């Protein structure tokens, strides 16, 4: 357990403003029905943890939110913009929604600093000096400013994932999505990444996190969402979710991992 995790539940920073609204959303991969009648509302500052067995559609759900995957039915409205064929909306959503992947997806041919300034300079049209300043600020926040001139391949997994988080933050997104950010890491590196995420949660960022780290979920989550076979089965606050799961599939899942 990390220090941050043991200090208990973070203060909630939820406002009444709706950040993400998903209505009756369905998605198929070919003939396979991955997501079924998904309804989910996320407010500004809310921190949602999504858990569930593998293949339950958790990753697909958050990948739909920033348009990495297309959905076929229903609506996804992010920051007031509806996801769909409208390319303007799509550009807006991609810049406002940051995402952190299981495999980091850093750009191996660029230095850490170049990884961080690429988006601000080319997409946000920021002045290069300002972009570097912002990048260094976030590198300090994820506690690796001394690695700025190295290449991703020279860093450990935990460091790479922290760079990936900083890279997303440099775009000053309104929402951060995390797709199993610690699953590809060695055990001793998980803590450093989780600590950074707890710090981030503390700043009031809207976050959706797919993870199997239940201790982390208890610390930061305002709500825990349990998914199984494409359905949202149960949604509850962490105390109730872990202390008193209602659905039998949730109980079974929790008994297997805790």
């Amino acid at each position: 357990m990390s220090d941050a995790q043991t200090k208990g539940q973070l203060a909630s920073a939820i406002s009444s403003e709706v950040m993400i609204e998903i209505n009756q959303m369905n998605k198929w991969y070919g003939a396979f029905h991955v997501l079924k009648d998904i309804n989910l509302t996320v407010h500004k500052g809310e921190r949602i943890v999504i858990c569930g067995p593998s293949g339950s559609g958790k990753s697909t759900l958050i990948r739909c939110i920033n348009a990495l995957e297309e959905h076929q039915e229903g609506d996804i409205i992010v920051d007031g913009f509806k996801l769909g064929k409208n390319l303007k909306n799509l550009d807006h959503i991609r810049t406002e929604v940051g995402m952190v992947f299981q495999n980091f997806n850093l750009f191996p041919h660029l230095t850490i600093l170049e990884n961080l300034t690429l988006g601000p300079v080319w997409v946000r049209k920021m002045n290069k000096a300002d972009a570097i300043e912002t990048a260094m600020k976030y590198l300090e926040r994820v506690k690796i400013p001394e690695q700025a001139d190295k290449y991703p391949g020279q860093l450990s997994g935990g460091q790479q994932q922290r760079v990936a988080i900083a890279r997303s933050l440099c775009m000053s997104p309104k929402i951060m999505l995390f797709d199993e950010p610690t699953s590809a890491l060695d055990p001793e590196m998980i803590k450093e990444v989780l600590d950074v995420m707890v710090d981030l949660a503390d700043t009031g960022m809207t976050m959706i996190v797919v993870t199997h780290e239940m201790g982390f979920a208890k610390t930061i989550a305002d709500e825990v969402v349990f998914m199984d076979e494409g359905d949202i089965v149960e949604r509850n606050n962490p105390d109730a979710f872990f202390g008193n799961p209602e659905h039998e599939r949730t109980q079974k899942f929790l008994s297997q991992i805790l």
Partner: protein
Amino acid sequence: MAIIKAEKTPDRSAPVSETSVMGWLHKNLFSSAFNTLLTLFTLYIIYLTASGVYGWGLRDATFAAENRRECYDYSLTGACWAGVIDWLDNIFYGRYPREEIWRINFGGLLLALWMAPLWMGRVKGKVLVGVTVVVFYPFLAGYLFSGGDKGFFMQVMVTGAIVAFAINMANMITGLTKNMGLNAFIIQMLEQGKAPDKTQRNILLLLLAIAFAAAFVWQVNWTVEGVSWTKWGGLFLTLVISGIGIASALPGGIILALGRRSKLPIVRVLSTGFIEVFRSVPLITVLFMATTMFPLFMPEGFVLNKLVQVIIAVILFNACYMAETVRAGLQAIPKGQFEGAHTIGLGYWGTMGLIIMPQALKHMIPNIVGSFIGLLKDTTLVSIIGLFDILGMLRSISKDVPWLGLHKEPLVFGAILFFIICFSMSKYSRHLEVKLSAGHKH
């Protein structure tokens, strides 16, 4: 369990067989009786070949003679290099007028100078150097080689080339001496370093306009005598065709490969069809098509010279091969890179230009250089449709009266020439690979 070793074991030196020359010989060449036999046999074969080549090519060879008969008088078994030496100018420059050959050499020198900054670590703005050389140099060189009257478009491009070359050279000098770009140097000289970005840019644009105007006025009176393309030949022609082919096959290939992977079905089908048609036809067929069929499809009175047709054919053919090389490189890039680019908001061209292509091109260098070498060698096919490229020239030596029947020596000379060029390219590509992968190991 008890302690096995209380002290750290000190390192000992390796056995002799691992470090000495004798040890290496014993291990690799004479480890068994059979191995020893094989080694001796191979050495004998090498000796036979080397002594034969030496005897024919150097010891018994004739280097100075008026004609083939004199060669035979000197030695019956040696090579007659005198014929090749007599024809050297033709081999390199074709039938280009002898007093105008300086233009070809000057063009080559310009190209070497223009590209030189690409290899200098301290010079800034390498991308600009690369772009200007591809955009402007062909026009300057084209005029230099063919001469005659310049049309208005040609005048503009030649002016652009002169200005670009001058800027490039000045930039190289400031880079080497002051370690700064030309633009920074000019701003510093004018003491405008504190001025806002916009003012600085306007000053530079004004200077550029003045330079362009001055160069334009100068070049109006600069003319060189016209030389018909029919007089072009030899290694010069080979390098012109393959140089243009190399410079345009890569961009063309990138565009076709992106087209083939496009999400738009019409673009994809057209690119795929184009690539497959050109790839499934031999180059010689494409060349014949270009020179005999192509004019039939053109409006009446529309005449392109044969050289241009050949160059177009070579470009299209090689762009299609390059497209497949590029596509293979693109496929080696993991999907996560596209997704990473997507999440920081990069669009299609940003993703391709900044993230995917730089990585893919690095993987493709060996294949790209392989294609370039193939292209260089394939251009010798143009001798079949009646252009006197290097192969055409080498083969005409045997039809020249004093050297009648001299086949072997010119072809061996050609082979050596090609080997030198291709081997340098191959070596350079190895060097490039090592250099590019030094920065970031995966």
